């Protein structure tokens, strides 16, 4: 086995058990794992975002290799940029299979405006970028939400609840009972979210039924998600079991013994210190008496 695989297994075991050690309490092993996780992920995602989104999709569309012509203004600017970094702006344009779309200057400008927040006197410029993102998302998603959450919901609920060609009761397939349940549940659930009237009388009863429906669906969702989490836990244990083999020099066992040993020793020392308080603590308690 390669040294890098063995080292990777040791690091993975250490980080996994370090994170699990939080179940005991916050401790230096958890802190190391947490800070590494946060720092590495932030750096990694920044790099990933730049090389998989910004460079190919933005610069790749502004300066594609396909239309490279050093005499044009665009590629004159590109050549200047290329002088500073040939890895981002390789010679002869960026070859990512895109055509040139100068409309992408707009996101480039918005991005630069976001960066302007680093200069206090120009920080207001960042608001334009935020306004664009929020406005664009609102407009784009309004149609989708209206289609799926409003019209789709009406369509999905509008079924023939007296369709006696279906079985009266079935849990796993369409039935009269299920159709009735969907009809009542949707209407009562919707009425629970009616805010401008006190929930009394008929509305109160309907909204109470609605909240029961919601809670039952939340319970089912909870159980389903817990099952998913258990499978994630099994995934981690599978890795730990794999790394506990002789191929990896018993990484899991050694790391486990090390962490448990150090935490146990720290707990023992802590308990000992608590058992024999320092003189100034004793004296202060006497003063209170």
């Amino acid at each position, binding site marked *: 086995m390669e040294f890098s695989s063995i080292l990777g297994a040791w690091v993975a075991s250490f980080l996994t058990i370090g994170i699990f050690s*939080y179940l005991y309490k*916050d401790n230096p092993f*958890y802190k190391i*794992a*947490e*800070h590494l*996780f*946060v*720092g*590495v*992920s*932030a750096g990694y*995602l920044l790099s990933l*975002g730049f090389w998989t989104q910004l460079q190919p999709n933005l610069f790749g569309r502004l300066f594609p290799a396909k239309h490279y012509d050093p005499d044009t203004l665009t590629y004159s600017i590109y050549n200047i940029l290329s002088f500073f970094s040939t890895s981002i702006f390789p010679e002869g344009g960026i070859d990512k299979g895109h055509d040139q779309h100068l409309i992408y200057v707009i996101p480039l400008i918005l991005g630069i405006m*976001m960066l302007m*927040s680093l200069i206090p006197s120009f920080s207001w410029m*960042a*608001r334009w*970028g*935020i306004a664009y*993102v*929020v406005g*664009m*998302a*609102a407009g784009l*998603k309004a*149609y989708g939400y*209206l*289609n799926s959450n*409003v*019209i789709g*919901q*009406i*369509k999905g*609920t*509008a*079924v*023939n*609840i*007296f*369709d006696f060609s279906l079985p009266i009761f079935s849990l796993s397939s369409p039935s009269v009972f299920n159709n009735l349940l969907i*009809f009542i549940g949707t*209407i009562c659930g*919707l*009425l629970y*979210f*009616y*805010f*401008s*009237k*006190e*929930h009394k009388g008929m509305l109160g009863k309907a909204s109470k039924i609605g909240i029961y429906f*919601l*809670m039952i669906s*939340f*319970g089912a*969702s*909870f159980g389903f*998600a817990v099952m998913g*989490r258990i499978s994630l836990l099994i995934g981690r244990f599978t890795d730990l079991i794999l790394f506990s083999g002789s191929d990896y020099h018993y990484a899991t066992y050694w790391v486990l013994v090390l962490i448990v040993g150090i935490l146990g020793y720290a707990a023992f020392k802590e308990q000992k210190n608590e058992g024999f308080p320092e003189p100034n603590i004793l004296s202060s308690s006497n003063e209170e008496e």
Partner: protein
Amino acid sequence: MKDKQFWVGSAIIAVLFLIYWVAGHPYFVTDRIVMFISIIFLSATLIFYTRAAERGEEFFLRPIPALKAVEEAVGRSTEMGRPILYVPGIQDMDQVETVAGVVVLGHVAKMTARYETSLNVPVSRSIVMKAARESCRDAYTVEGRPDMFNEDMVHYLTDDQFAYAAGVNGIMVREKPAACMYMGKFYAESLILAETGNSIGAIQIAGTASQAQIPFFVTACDYTLIGEEFFAASAYLSQKPELIGGVKGQDMIKLFVTAAIVLSTILMILFETAGVGINISDFLTIR
């Protein structure tokens, strides 16, 4: 806009549309007429009630316990001298929940400025960081305490979901905030956050429309704003007439949807059992 201007503007648009329709309505996708009617109807309802509220008409809003608890949580943090942790979800500003979360953050920041309580907002997206900072800055300025605002109260951790959860957990166990608020779009990290908040004894208020995460918040938090309650939070907290009018308008839309469901079901029964009327399912299909 004044009433007269509004109605004249609306009439001009209506007349122009009629001319366009009579002229053969080129480029109009007739298959999507249901969507067109819905957008017009819903927009008109919202505009009507928002304008009514602006004119001074008062609308009743039933109390929502979780929103009352927000001020209590800020008060509790003040008494205990501990910070408030506000998590605006893990998604970007293109998610409606994140936008709602940042809006509610503005109200919470106003309270923390008023009570001189420290606020900690770890975020997982750069644009959210900028928006949240602006929201907090405005809140502290409006409350007359710009000196209390510092940019580091809203700080970036990481974009990665579980690394962010680990980072927020670390903040919780070390700073021991008296109140934790989770308002935004959440995924699998919701239970990790809420459980840790519970273990440090913080009062916890959550608000999200992420259907799969609501159960976790309901189990681990003291109060949870479910779906629409979360979107109405801003109106409740600000008590601004135009926002309250918007909530009233949304209520009317819900009544309309309820009526549409009942009517569609009746039409469906008639169509399938007696062959009378139209197939509403086909009519509602957007192509």
